[in-house]
């Protein structure tokens, strides 16, 4: 187990290095630069800036310098926001984004599995149709539409919650709702399918033949089997949610990290591009590892070893 985990962590570092390398060279291949704008700078000023940020160095030297710094978790200064480093941006934005993200995750897990179980148990009955209908809406209506509708009706018309802003717990409600709509829908669908499959298995019939009451059959015998396929989906999905949703943060005016993913590219803010990309890659690798560990907790047939085969 320990050997396996060490192997996985080494592999993760390799993956992140590959991501850094690819992103670095692709980013520099985009025409334009961080200080290109419609204001024409004096050549001397341009040269000074380039020298200040080592943009005149050969590309490969810039790359090795970046790797060296990144190894010490120094991701450099931002080009756009004077006097702030990439680390500052992540430190400031990520907790806010992660707060909304993790709340949406928990909400999605609870509501999604609940709706999914109900739908499976009441297959082809009203409750199933309602849950499936909600899930279809959640999947097909984009989050910005849901966010805007919430903002207009719940925030502006009914005054239940403040429509925008950050800082007050009340201001969390609508972004979390809007952000969780899609994962709730997906988890509902997956849980339903998975539960239906499990409920027709022979071991459920055995459990019934043992005279166990319905709730024990559903929660002890069926659910544990049904969440195995769900785990696969959840890992990468929650890595994405935690890194923020640009649209939701933009609509609700939340100073999270989401906006930097998009603006850094148009700004050619090289260190921010790199920093955010590494953040996503790291979360993704971590969550996949967590999912693999979670498998072994749920399914005793899965053992983590570094041997091929059984």
């Amino acid at each position: 187990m320990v050997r396996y985990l060490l192997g996985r962590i080494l592999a993760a570092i390799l993956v992140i290095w590959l991501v850094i390398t690819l992103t670095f060279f692709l980013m520099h291949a985009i025409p334009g630069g961080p200080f290109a704008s419609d204001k024409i700078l004096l050549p001397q000023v341009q040269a000074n800036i380039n020298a200040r940020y080592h943009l005149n160095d050969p590309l490969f030297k810039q790359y090795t310098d970046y790797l060296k710094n990144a190894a010490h978790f120094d991701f450099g200064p931002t080009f756009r926001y004077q006097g702030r480093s990439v680390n500052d941006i992540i430190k400031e934005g990520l907790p806010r984004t992660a707060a909304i993200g993790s709340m949406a995750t928990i909400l999605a897990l609870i509501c999604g599995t609940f709706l999914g179980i109900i739908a499976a148990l009441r297959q082809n009955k009203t409750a199933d149709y309602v849950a499936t209908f909600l899930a279809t809406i959640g999947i097909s209506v984009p989050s910005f539409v849901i966010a805007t509708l919430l903002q207009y009706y719940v925030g502006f018309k009914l005054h239940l919650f403040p429509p925008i802003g950050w800082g007050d717990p009340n201001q969390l409600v609508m972004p979390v709702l809007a952000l969780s709509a899609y994962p709730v829908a997906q988890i509902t669908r997956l849980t339903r399918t998975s539960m239906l499959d499990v409920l027709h298995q022979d071991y459920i019939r055995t459990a019934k033949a043992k005279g166990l009451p319905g709730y024990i059959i559903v929660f002890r015998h069926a659910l544990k089997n049904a969440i195995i396929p769900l785990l696969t989906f959840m890992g990468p999905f929650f890595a994405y949610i935690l890194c923020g949703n640009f649209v939701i943060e933009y609509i609700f005016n939340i100073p999270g990290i989401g906006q930097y993913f998009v603006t850094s590219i148009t700004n050619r803010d090289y260190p921010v591009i790199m920093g955010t990309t590494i953040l996503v890659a790291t979360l993704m690798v971590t969550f996949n590892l967590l999912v693999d560990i979670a498998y072994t907790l749920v399914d005793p047939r899965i053992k983590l070893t570094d041997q091929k085969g059984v």
Partner: protein
Amino acid sequence: MALLEVENLSTSFYTYAGEVQSVSGVSFHVDEGEAVGIVGESGCGKSVTVQSIMRLIPNPPGKIKNGQIRLAGRDLVRLPEKEMQKIRGKEIGMIFQDPMTSLNPVLTIGRQMTEVLQHHEGIGKNEALGRAAKYLTMVGISNPERRLKQYPHEFSGGMRQRVMIAMALLCNPKLLIADEPTTALDVTIQAQILELMKDLKDKVNTSIILITHDLGVVAGLCSRIIVMYGGKIVEMGSTQDIFKDPRHPYTWGLLKSVPRLDASKRSKLVPIVGSPPDLLNPPKGCGFAARCPHAMKICETQPPAYTDLNEKHRAACWLLHPDAPKVTFNGIDEKEARS
């Protein structure tokens, strides 16, 4: 005394194509301490019959349409679900066909066994584990304490079926239903499991209903045999009667299709030609008429009534009518078997 009485049981499945009459008008009984075999080919209603007894028919689409199932006098068909849960696992234990899929892969054997006891008898975990270990030993699983902590995938097929048997017997049920318990196992393991069941039958004094499509399996264990065809009982009688004096052409067919060690090498197995009736549109007359080599005109138009041949032995066939031509079972050709 009869422990279980099934009277005029009919179970149907309602599909888009229409009503499939899987079991229609089945009546039989099982005495205390008796082992009864139900034989017949796939789709003849054996499993549906016992699943009706357990009320495990998935509804919808299935439904017990008619009849009574009395366990020690109580009618199970009209029992509320809550009461039925107290019968399942406690008064009737059940073993299924495929031990590879009948145990929950993510729960330990101990958990799956003790939950029966905890639920039905309300005893504590340690006491339940102790009883489970005792029963595992009884079905021939050594090192039970360690085995209880293991998961199903750590057991072989035969071992899993032993676990299933132990689990079904935990609450000392009055009736044990075994739905093709050996079909999914290879021959040597089959023999072991049958030996075990024979052994346990005397030890725990429970009645047994054994379902199989293998006549050899029932012969060794059961004192009475019920032959089902097309959702109906076509013949039933003591094991002696069924093997030595079978009266229904379908039973003849079944007996002829059993491979025999003492048959000559050149003799071929005799299959029953044709396929079982479509229970979506059951035939008006005898279900077997279309495949019966002795079918008469009346067989196609009117269902045969039961003819009692002795106290236990009865068959539903027009050939047993006083006016019918005399046709007898010539058995496996004795001359051929000897040569």
